[in-house]
């Protein structure tokens, strides 16, 4: 009996002293007091968590090392330069950076309201018999390989955009800089639409799960205070803010990294133009397109530097989103206390 008490006490102590002094928990006290199986398991999981760190840093290190020639040659001009000419070995990545950021942000802009509406409907309004099949269909969208989206884009969407949507837009809204130029079908608009369809299932299904995890007691409490349905949904939404933000982040990550489907419809021209009709290019697609046949060292190194920029960009965006999530949860928990 006293043994059990002792171990329980020990566990409590363990929980209290959470920030362990060393990464691996092999202090003599632990070895004697703990179940050896637990100890081994704990350290194995810790090891793999550590491996993730090592992997990320190793990747960053290798990319920096491999892009050194191009960093030395071009410096900051690599980011501000707009000319990409493998023949004369001059590389400026601005059109690709622009293409990636603009296409991903616009895709989010289209996708967020759509997917949040679907998620709210599924978690708050839909009857059971409808919720199941619709959720299943949404999740199936996520499972479609991106090359299939690309083929759908080339054979169905692009011709439709060229013959119907883009002429209509340029007629009605042609005075705006966003709808100028010849309607090719291929271009930024096509990429934005494909991307928004691709990230819709991710944002939808995660947001729905998060909203469903808000306990019903909160909804009931809200109704009890005399709130309307809409006001109750607002309560649910504010409770699942950080989860939804996480979902949006994942969607954004997919949009930034998407290669195949985008490269098939975006037109692959390294131009910077406000017009959505204009062909454009992204960082991921230029790497996929040109890496296999890149021969000169500077060329390869420049492509790797683009990969590095893509890496840094995702790290920065993740950090910003983390900060927002922290801010939101702090405010929310503050309001509760």
């Amino acid at each position: 009996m006293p043994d059990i008490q002792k171990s329980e006490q020990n566990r409590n102590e363990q929980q209290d002293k959470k920030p362990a002094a060393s990464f691996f928990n092999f202090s003599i006290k632990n070895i004697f007091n703990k179940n050896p199986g637990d100890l081994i398991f704990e350290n194995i999981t810790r090891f793999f968590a550590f491996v993730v760190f090592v992997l990320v840093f190793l990747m960053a290190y290798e990319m920096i090392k491999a892009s050194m020639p191009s960093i030395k040659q071009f410096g900051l001009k690599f980011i501000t330069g707009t000319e990409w000419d493998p023949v004369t070995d001059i590389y400026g990545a601005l059109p690709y950076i622009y293409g990636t950021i603009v296409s991903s942000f616009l895709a989010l802009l289209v996708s967020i309201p759509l997917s949040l509406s679907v998620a709210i409907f599924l978690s708050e309004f839909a009857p059971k018999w409808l919720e199941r099949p619709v959720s299943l269909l949404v999740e199936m969208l996520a499972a479609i390989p991106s090359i299939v989206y690309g083929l759908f884009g080339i054979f169905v969407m692009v011709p439709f955009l060229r013959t119907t949507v883009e002429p209509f837009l340029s007629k009605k809204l042609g005075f705006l800089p966003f709808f100028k130029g010849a309607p090719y079908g291929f271009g930024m608009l096509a990429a934005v639409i494909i991307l928004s369809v691709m990230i819709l299932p991710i944002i939808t299904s995660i947001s729905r799960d998060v909203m469903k995890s808000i306990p019903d007691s909160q909804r009931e409490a809200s109704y009890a205070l005399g709130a309307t349905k809409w006001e109750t949904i607002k309560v649910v939404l504010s409770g699942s803010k950080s989860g939804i933000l996480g979902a949006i982040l994942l969607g954004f990550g997919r949009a930034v990294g998407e290669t195949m489907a985008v490269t098939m419809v975006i037109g692959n021209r390294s131009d910077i133009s406000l017009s959505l009709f204009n062909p454009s290019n992204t960082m991921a697609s230029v790497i996929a397109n040109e890496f296999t046949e890149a021969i000169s060292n500077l060329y390869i190194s420049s492509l790797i530097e683009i990969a590095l920029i893509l890496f840094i960009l995702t790290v920065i965006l993740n950090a910003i989103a983390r900060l927002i999530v922290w801010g939101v949860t702090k405010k929310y928990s503050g309001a509760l206390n």
Partner: protein
Amino acid sequence: MKGKLILLAAMLLGIFSTSSFAQLKLNGAGATFPYVIYSKWFDTYHQKTGIEFNYQSIGSGGGIKQVTEGTVDFGASDAFLSEKQMKTIKQKQGTPVLHIPTVMGAVVLSYNLPNVGKGLKLSPEVLSDIYLGKITMWNDSRITSINKGLSLPSDPILVAHRSDGSGTTNIFTGYLSKVSKQWSDKVGSGTSVNWPVGLGGKGNEGVAGIVKQTEGSIGYVELAYAVQNGLPYASLKNKAGYFVEPTFDAVSEAAAGYIKNMPADLRVNITNADGKGSYPISGFTWLLIYKNMKDKQKVEAIKNFLKWAVTDGEKYAKGLYYAPLPKEVVKLDLEKIKQITYKK
């Protein structure tokens, strides 16, 4: 019991001895364009001799890289190596590298003009100006003057090109640089270039996709791809002034037209060749072989394989949509193959 064991041992010995004898493996990497015929060759030759080939079609650039690093036994490329690249290989691997032309391909201009159908004609000047963005309409007088009898629409020309680096682009831009001074000054040639106009499609299928989907478009693809997919393509005016349709014979004739100017190392760009019937945008694809190799068995294997490939192997070419080497080039190849030697 003992007898069984001996039998087992004998069997094992048998397996190992035969496999160690036949398990000579040759690793190669490089161009994707000749992959279909190479894999046919490797497969047939494996059945004949038991020598195994492992070929990674990772692209010419990757092939050259691996030959430079010495991680493969042979490489393959759609573009020949530059002097600088050859020097690097010699420094790193201690042996020069030989170019062995294997088959030929051509680049054709496919277009989408429903009212015209087949039979569009193009001249080098018109073609380069279309790709420079100087001719923008199909009914431009310079196009109509060489296409009398065709009703060309008053639509803008949509130019399509490859977005990925490729040997096809290298041959095409090499040709344009040869026939247009402005092109060579402004754009130049390479596996990927800074295109003045147009949309990029990934791979032959990407370019063909743009062309098929867009009325008034023109794009360049490999001859094999155009033939297999039934795309319409233009005849091109060659150096001698004749409009020639891209056919396998016209491609072989282009190589034959270059035979008297063939450099000793077989590194030659045969675009814009002489000869009445030669199609001007044609090119070789090469196997890159180390001249001196350290493994005696491998030297023999590679030499025998190459000899077989450029003679008997050529008969598979047309069936797989490649143009076979003309006899004169086969002769030069056989000479070259003799130079491969074993050296410690």
